[in-house]
């Protein structure tokens, strides 16, 4: 049997990788890719806790499904924004999108 710790460390590693992507990539689409990785790591955790807890309690899976839904929504909106920004500013480089600057 695979111990719970493996899943968790695996998820943590995937999360960190995704976070690195979020923090470091210049391309907005790439940032979204990083986010997808982070969300997946969370889902692994949820599924693992479901399996290693009481399997009759479906909370883990339910939440994983909701995360899917949220992820789908996020991607949809995020990509729409990227396209919109790209249209108006002709760039998708996150560094250059700094209208919030002082």
């Amino acid at each position: 049997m695979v111990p719970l710790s493996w899943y968790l460390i695996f998820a943590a590693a995937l999360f960190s990788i995704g976070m690195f992507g979020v923090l470091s990539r210049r391309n907005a689409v790439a940032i979204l890719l990083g986010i997808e990785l982070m969300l997946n790591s969370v889902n692994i955790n949820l599924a693992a806790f479901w399996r290693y807890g009481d399997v009759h309690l479906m909370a883990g899976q339910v939440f994983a499904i909701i995360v899917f839904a949220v992820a789908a929504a996020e991607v949809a909106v995020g990509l729409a924004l990227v396209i919109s920004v790209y249209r108006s500013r002709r760039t998708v480089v996150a560094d250059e999108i700094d209208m919030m600057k002082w």
Partner: protein
Amino acid sequence: METTTLIWLIPLPPLLAFFLIVLFTNRSKALSHTIAVGAAALSFIGSMIVFVRALGVEHLGEHPFESAINWLPTGDTWFRIGVLIDPLGAAVLFFVAITIFMIFLYSVGYHNYGQPAGDHDVKGLPPHGATVTDEHGHKHVVPSVEPMYSRFFAFLGLFAFGMYTLVVSDNLLTLFVGWEIMGLCSYLLIGFWYGKPSARDAAVKAFMTTRVGDVFMLLGIAFLYSATGTLTFREIFTEETLHALASTPAWFGMTASGLIALLLFIGTVGKSAQWPLHVWLPDAMEGPTPVSAMIHAATMVSAGVYAVIRMFPLLTADWNGHELTTTMTIVAFIGAFTALFAATIAVAQNDIKRVLAYSTISQLGYMIAALGIGAYVAAAFHLITHAFFKALLFLGSGSVIHGMEHGVLHTGNHHVDPQDMYNMGGLRKKMPITFWTFLIGGFALSGFPLVTAGFWSKDEILADAFGHGHLAVFVTLAIAAFLTAFYTMRQITLTFLGEPRTEEAKHAQETPWTMTTPLIVLAFFAVTYGWVGISEHFPILGGLVPNWFHDFVGHTLAEVPEAPEFSWIPLLTSLVVALGGLALGYLTYRNVKSVSEDKFQIPLLKNKYYFDEAYNFLFIRPAYWFAENVVYKFLDKGVIDGFLHAFGPFTQGTGSALRNYFDLPVINRAIGDGSAEITYWFGGKLRGIQTGRVQQYLMLALVTFIVIGAALYFFVFAA
């Protein structure tokens, strides 16, 4: 009708007449004078009924007609006002009713009722006469009717109301009400021809001078009321109250009764024009007519003496019968001094009314002096006889002036003063009724022996003064009496005797019946009224007629005063001064042709001892100066407003100091600007991290999160 009800009603018709005329009928001259004269007649009839009924009461002194109602609530009690007719009241009411009725009647003629309106007459100035064309086409100038005819009667009505109120009052307060209403009327009547500056100023002067006395009187009333709790005469003049007042010490070393009497007396000094408040009365002759002059001189000023007579028990409350009290001394001194003082001025006056005015002052001084030495009945007697003959003289002089005005209109020379005696002369032929009645009045004033009323009353005063040992008063009054006879004869001589000195005097005319009838009636009383008060001790005549007046009026007091013992000295004195004065007057002025020949035109006397000038210099101008410069300009505008206005600069100074030395450096610079600058500085330093790049924000957040999380973990959870 109940006598008391009737007494209540006596003052009302003239008041009603006043309101009716003012509010409704002032456009109609006929209606106005009908109402006014009718009202006077009603009051006259009522007064006579009351007088007759009063005569019929046995002990009127103890049981007078009286009635009172609640008027003012004062705490738990009421101040009551009412009417009272006791012997004194009845006697006074008698002469007041007669004279007032006569005045009303006389005024109709004097103001030229029935004559056409004047050509250029305006309200506020005396009428100047009207031009009429007779059936032959000749133009004549005739006297014109007074433009403010109705108003005059309204004022007269109000005046009569005041006088009646004063007489029938049973208390000092309503007496004062009547007193002041008359004051107002005298103001209005003196200023009747308000268009003349002299009349206007004389009116103000009269009001103010009498008001000086009035405020003292008001103070005396307040004092009396405070000390006794009542102002009703019959309650004050009880043995206990008077005794209590007489034994209460007040201020200035006087007893309460003495001080109150003195304060009330000062009111009289003002009203009766005694020295030193006499200055208004001669000026009051600016009044339009001898009628109004007579109102002041013969009736209203009598009110002052009447008040002192009324308050006689109070005046003498602390008197032992011999030594005069302080108050009485003052009263006697002022009376005697005024009698002499005014008589000397009268000698040098040329205006027919002014002579009479000073004569009035002098005669009132007589009465006051009599009261000061305790001669109650004599004073009351002289008051009444004087009222008759002085009214007669004033009306007579009015008649003369009226006749002279006729002459002035005839010649058209308006520069001739119809009141100046040096413009007259020889009028006895032109105006016989006036002359004879005036002569009677003049003789009565001089105290022509035996036949005139003036003789009996004046003699009684002299006898009292002598009999009670007040020689200084006696001598002074005797000299005054001599002067009185002298100037009276001077007046008669200059006016009626000799030949006319001017064209106007030649064309003078006798006056209409409305004016002469009152003269005749008053002349009757000027002679006969003396006979009701002939002393029993008088040789031969004494006892022929009972001394009714002494009995009747004397019973007003609780103790009927004793008539003095008969003595030849005062009798002879009064004979000598009266006859001597008359003779000297006639001899001196028999041949005087013009004013330059008059030896008595001494500037000091002519200018009335410069009292007007002195008062103007001492009181009036300083008062105005004080009011304008000290009170208004210095205190109000300078000190108080200056203080207030200083508040502005002061507040501004404080404000700018606060601003310059606290707000700006401390609050603004250090705290206000300082905090902003610090924030600015920090912001400047920190804004570098506001890159607008989402990833950097995220990094920062994560760093913070990690640092805080680590710190929490290691220092809180792990610890």
